[in-house]
């Protein structure tokens, strides 16, 4: 297990009042923004359990939206994010729900538009977060690594083709997580890496047969 550093103890600088309900919400929004990475017509935020119940008092709704707009955890605009020009340009709504099968601090981001996508995430404490689902695929994205996310048609050889392309960039793979909806159907791959992937590498992956979604998700800076 990674031990805390002094930096973890004396920071982050953040908009209050709660690391899990405010800073964590901003980080979930930021990561969702990096994953969706395109313009949508409408975004629905579904907040569950403690996020739903104490979300207003903790500014969880504001945090999620602010993150989605690309504001960092210490952005002064978070408090009044609903009034910002950036927020006024997008169409969004919040739903507050109870579902005890979900984490106490869970959220769904439902993007509609040219690309429909549903992302689910949890705020797991001390500002740490994890995206657990992209559409119907389980993933494990915590924003700590640059990550290549792929959705493609399940067939033999895809994993080795992708890892070979990454190998050509001389980049080390920290973890690799795969899932699929069924044999020969949609599949997902989440590859966390040490370092950076080149544009050339990403282009090569995109050119592979039957790649539906290719996203290079940058790690969170704050």
């Amino acid at each position: 297990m990674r031990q805390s550093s002094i930096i973890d103890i004396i920071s982050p600088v953040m908009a209050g009042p709660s690391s899990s309900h405010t800073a964590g919400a901003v980080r979930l929004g930021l990561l969702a923004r990096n994953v969706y990475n395109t313009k949508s017509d409408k975004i629905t935020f579904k907040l569950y359990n403690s996020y739903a119940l104490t979300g207003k008092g903790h500014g969880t709704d504001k945090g999620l939206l602010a993150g989605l707009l690309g504001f960092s955890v210490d952005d002064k605009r978070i408090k009044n994010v609903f009034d910002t020009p950036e927020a006024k340009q997008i169409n969004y709504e919040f739903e507050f729900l109870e579902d005890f099968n979900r984490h106490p601090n869970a959220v769904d981001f439902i993007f509609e538009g040219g690309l429909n996508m549903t992302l689910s995430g949890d705020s797991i404490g001390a500002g740490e977060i994890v995206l657990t689902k992209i559409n119907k695929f389980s993933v494990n994205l915590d924003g700590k690594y640059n990550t290549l996310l792929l959705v493609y048609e399940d067939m033999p050889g895809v994993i080795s083709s992708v890892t070979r392309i990454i190998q050509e960039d001389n980049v080390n793979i920290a973890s690799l997580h795969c899932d699929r909806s069924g044999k020969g159907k949609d599949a997902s791959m989440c590859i966390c890496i040490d370092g950076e992937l080149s544009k050339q590498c990403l282009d090569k992956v995109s050119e592979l047969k039957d790649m539906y979604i290719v996203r290079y998700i940058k790690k969170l800076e704050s």
Partner: protein
Amino acid sequence: MENIITTFRQLYYTCKEQNKKIYETALDYEVSKGEYSEYQIRLQAAKSLNAMKEAIKIGLNSTEPSPSGMSGDDCDKLQKRFNKSGSVLGKTAQKIMTYALATSEQNLRMGIIAACPTAGSCGIVPSVLIAYAEDYNLDENEQINALITAGEVGRIVSVKMALAGAVGGCQAECGVASAMASAALTQMRGGNIKQIINASALALKNILGLTCDPVCGLVEIPCVKRNPFLAIHAVSASELAMADIISKIPADEIVDAMEQTGKLMSPLLKESSQGGLAKTKTAIALEKNILR
């Protein structure tokens, strides 16, 4: 440096052997882990320190209510009282109390604060550190050294126990913040290694068992007022330590006791708002008014 520092005992002996201050040993150790340079750590400490000062400045001059409407004017009330009637506490201690309230009220207002170690406990370290530095004219470098000293105390506790109310109750948040603040203060006052570690030990020992039972599930009641209480608590610990009054139980054993106490504490009292203050008659009435 191959030395691993995960206990106060290791910290003490490393400082002694190398004739270094706690913040120097802490920086050496962080750098040896390879993730951050000394420059990066000092830069982050400076960034946190600036955010702390800014939060105090804004908080001292605000009476804006929190989103729940339950708080927001306590710092103003306290300042008025001190200005009019003074206090049995000295000038610096008055400042510490007002700075702690100013910061924790700013946190409620969604203002920018430094989580140190957490957002709910964000008023404790800055109030003690900055009030003392102002009144005793310490420069920024000395303040950063004190903040790194505080950070090292929090880091060592966090090796054994997550600094989260949901894991260990408030002893793991405001309690640890108070231990960190007492270390920073003792460092700034010229205390030696033993006195600094002892100050932290005394502060931690005195808050064992502190629960986390926030009303309405919000970081508000009792969190806001707990910040000035535990800031003064840190000063008491430093005073005892500077007089060479020794905690008979060593710091590492206190951390063990704290970790065990956190485990034994009912989940109803660990940030779930299902017991203690959160389930009082008044809290339940507030819940009906405020939530939904």
